[in-house]
């Protein structure tokens, strides 16, 4: 039996047989016959249409395109503009592209310093003339990054975050449709930061979500992303790629380009659960800010009040949000809430806990006056707070 030796894993040699099947065999049973020279990958030239607007694609590690080596079974992510265009040729009908690979990390390994680099890259691309920016991102923490960027970069052009829920190597992947929809949005009339992903399980429509109001609400489905507390700010029909924006969507050219990339990283988000001991708050000693994801209207257990009070007295800004996700925090209804307000906890209105966290990082990096911080946290800056709840 002959095949191609792939690797050793868990004490077994993995061999790809000539039929295409992989099998695991004891390493001793494998004999090397020959070591063929690696075949260079064929790379057909991609010609871009100079008549079309230019978009910048910034990749952070989310895979928008990948290539499979059926000889070895290896799947590699593709980041260069021409590689992406080879994988999704229809993108070439929408725009020209230049690409930049900022990072290649799993989205759970994302961190504020990379959000800052991302903001600077986006700013640079727009400054040098991109008519829109597409950021490819792993879906797990995409909403955090998108929200962070929306505070750090004010932009006249669309900044679109996109990813795929089903791996790009599979013929059924949502990558191509999401990418095409995001390119349609990035060349369109939007003027804010958005997440563009499948709206349903079918390949029929993408939703355009406001960066500060979007959340991943399912572990695996294509339509995992949902706008919380508001409808999506637009839709893209597929395959027509017709974009329709709601009246609320900020339009292209509304804002001037502006970069404010400072973040206070000593901020945390704590999900309260029944019985959680107050000592857990010791972890946040010395933090500049703490967002609480409380129960219902915005509560934590009564026993927390003294320790929280000490934290606040020590200079930590504490913002209350709700683990209900939908609806507005109101700490004026029950005693515990009134006690929380009494010690200086800030009601986070209808902000999503994650959006409140990145906003707090951004605000605390710019302001240290508690009154100003409180005012900014309760003021709508990037669509994160709405006048009326739904």
């Amino acid at each position, binding site marked *: 039996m002959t095949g191609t030796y792939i690797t050793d894993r868990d004490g077994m040699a993995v061999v790809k047989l000539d*039929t*295409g099947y992989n099998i695991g065999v004891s390493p001793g049973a494998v004999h090397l016959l020959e070591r063929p020279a690696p075949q260079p990958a064929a790379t057909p030239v991609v010609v871009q249409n100079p008549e079309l607007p230019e978009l910048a694609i910034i990749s952070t590690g989310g895979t928008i395109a990948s290539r499979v080596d059926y000889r070895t079974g290896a799947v590699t992510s593709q980041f260069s503009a021409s590689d992406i265009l080879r994988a999704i040729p229809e993108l070439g009908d929408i725009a020209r592209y230049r690409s930049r690979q900022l990072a290649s990390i799993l989205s759970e390994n994302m961190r504020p310093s990379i959000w800052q680099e991302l903001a600077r890259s986006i700013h640079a691309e727009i400054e040098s003339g991109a008519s829109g920016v597409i950021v490819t991102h792993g879906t797990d923490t995409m909403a955090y990054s998108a929200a962070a960027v929306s505070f750090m970069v004010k932009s006249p052009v669309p900044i679109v975050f996109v990813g795929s829920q089903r791996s790009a190597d599979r013929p059924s992947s949502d990558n191509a449709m999401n990418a095409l929809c995001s390119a349609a949005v990035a060349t369109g009339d939007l003027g804010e930061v958005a997440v563009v992903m499948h709206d349903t399980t079918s390949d029929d429509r993408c939703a355009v979500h406001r960066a500060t109001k979007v959340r991943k609400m399912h572990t695996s489905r294509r339509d995992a992303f949902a706008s919380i507390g508001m409808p999506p700010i637009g839709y893209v029909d597929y395959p027509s790629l017709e974009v329709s924006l709601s009246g609320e969507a900020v339009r292209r050219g509304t804002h001037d380009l502006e970069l404010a990339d400072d973040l206070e990283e000593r901020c945390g988000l704590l999900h309260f659960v029944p019985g959680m001991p107050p000592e857990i708050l010791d972890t946040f000693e010395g933090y500049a800010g703490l967002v609480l994801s409380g129960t219902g209207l915005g509560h934590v257990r009564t026993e927390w009040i003294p320790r929280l009070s000490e934290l606040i007295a020590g200079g930590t800004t504490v913002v209350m949000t709700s683990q209900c996700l939908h609806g507005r925090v109101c700490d004026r209804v029950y005693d515990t809430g009134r006690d929380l307000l009494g010690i200086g906890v800030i009601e986070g209105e209808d902000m999503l806990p994650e959006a409140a966290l990145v906003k707090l990082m951004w605000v605390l990096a710019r302001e240290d006056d508690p009154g100003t911080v409180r005012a900014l946290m309760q003021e709508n800056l990037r669509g994160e707070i709405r006048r009326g709840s739904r």
Partner: protein
Amino acid sequence: MEYDYAEIGLKAGIEIHQQLDTAEKLFCRCPTALRDTAEHTDEFSRYLRATESELGEIDRAAQEEMRLVRRFRYYTYDTVCLVEHDEEPPAPLNPEALSVCLTIAKMLAMTPIEQVHTMRKLVIDGSNTSGFQRTALVALNGTLPGDCRVETICLEEEAAQRVEDETFSLDRLGIPLVEITTAPCMHTPGDVQAVARQIGMVLRSTGKVKRGLGTIRQDVNVSIRDGARVEIKGVQELDLIAEVVRREVQRQVGLLGIRDELRARGASVDPAVTDVTDLFAETQSAILKKAKNILAVCLPGFAGLIGREIQPGRRLGSEMADYAKKCGVGGIFHTDELPAYGVTAEEVARLREHLGIGEQDAVVLVAASRQRAGCAAEQVIIRATMALDGVPEETRRMLEGGSTAYMRPLPGAARMYPETDVFPVSIGAGLWESIETPELLTDRAERFHRDLGLDEALARQMAFSERLLLFERAVAEGVRPVLAARTLLGTIRELARDGVGVAAVTDDEVIGLLQAVEAGSAAKEAIPDVLIELARTAGERARQTPEERVAAAIEAVAPAISAADLEAVVRNVVEEREEFVRERGMGALGPLMGVVMKEVRGSVDGKLVAQALKRELERRAS
């Protein structure tokens, strides 16, 4: 016509796909139940696109499918989860399915793989929501009677069932399937059928495979010398396999004949496509009249050969039409069959004149929108060019009767990559040794004949029956084998044929009834009536035990009669017919049997009735 298969170098192999009867699917915990499509609870739609390979190539079978951008629709059910929707990673490989697969491997004397890796096999015809089929090579190198060999056994997930065109039903997707591939070691159509039958028997011997139409499918690989390897998909009836092979040989021989004649004539394929829409402006042909564009392909030297039959009902023209249909056209016209279909002789003459071609030359017409017609004309050129080379390597599908139609090119080898979401499974010595191989059905039939006294036909029928397990249980619980076999194979089947809902009678009830007969509390003549009663009252007495339900059914159709009662009935019958009895003496026994049996309504065994009658007649005679 029968060929000298050794002379033409026939080589054939088969791939058998058999659904397993496991509780759960291969990569999720959904039941392996098939549903009525009318019960679907929702539907969704997807596009599939082939992924680029490292070589910058897309698999050629996949590319063929992509020729037409297609939107697939899927029906979903309350017995289907997100795994079938391709919306959730797969669960670990189903251990029950692996165990059945290993059992089959062991029965075929195969060698298991040390560590089984699940692969993704690219399939973008819509039948898999993911665009690939998960498959794992489990064992190698098995033996078959004769000098044939099993190459591999794979454990795979079943594809979704096509409802129509581009609509698929997700109930079937993910049912475990074994794929058994033989070497190309068969040399006559009869060999192929015999090997398929043998493997089918081994599979059924496990008692863990699904039964019924569509649960087993055979793909046949056929080639002859100078021909090409052709894979014929989805032969469902075992009895047709030999015919399919015969017809494929006929087709390849026919295509080689056409090739030789084309070469002798110096035939060629004109790569230029001519728009002849205007020529048919006034046509009476409904299809041509409707079409936006009519394109012509000239095939110099092809006249008479496009219409030549190469298989019952199939011509070279049918092959070209199959290729053209990939572009979404309904078919083609060719000059070997014209004038016809509303196209007149004058139109054909005008076409030939316009294209400046002679009698030896043929023209193929395609009619559709510009894009589709252009694509179809290109496909006709591709297929016509292949005719100059003989037989193309192809995947074909079976038509009714055993002829075949083109489906897609043979898939290239390079179309598999690892399913990284499923961990490899090691098959240690312990697992392999723990696999018990069941008795082969053929051995079992022999044993039933030898040890249980069933005649050979009944023994075989019983061994291969779906009621085998019930039969074995009945025998183990003291029922005479012949009674059990006759009831299960004869009585129950006849009742079902007559429309009695015997399927509702539980196994426990059937056993209870047979035991009642053996105990003498019911006559075997009463079995059909009791079964009808059990079927009629199925589900009504849910709180009763099977024994109680059987007893109630017996009581309803044939009230228990004691020996004293029987004697009274017999005496009565004999007395009423005193004259007849005097005349016939002991000869009255036969005719009176029926009368008494009717009186006791079958609730007494015929033998007891005969004895009682005999005693009474003897008593009177003495």
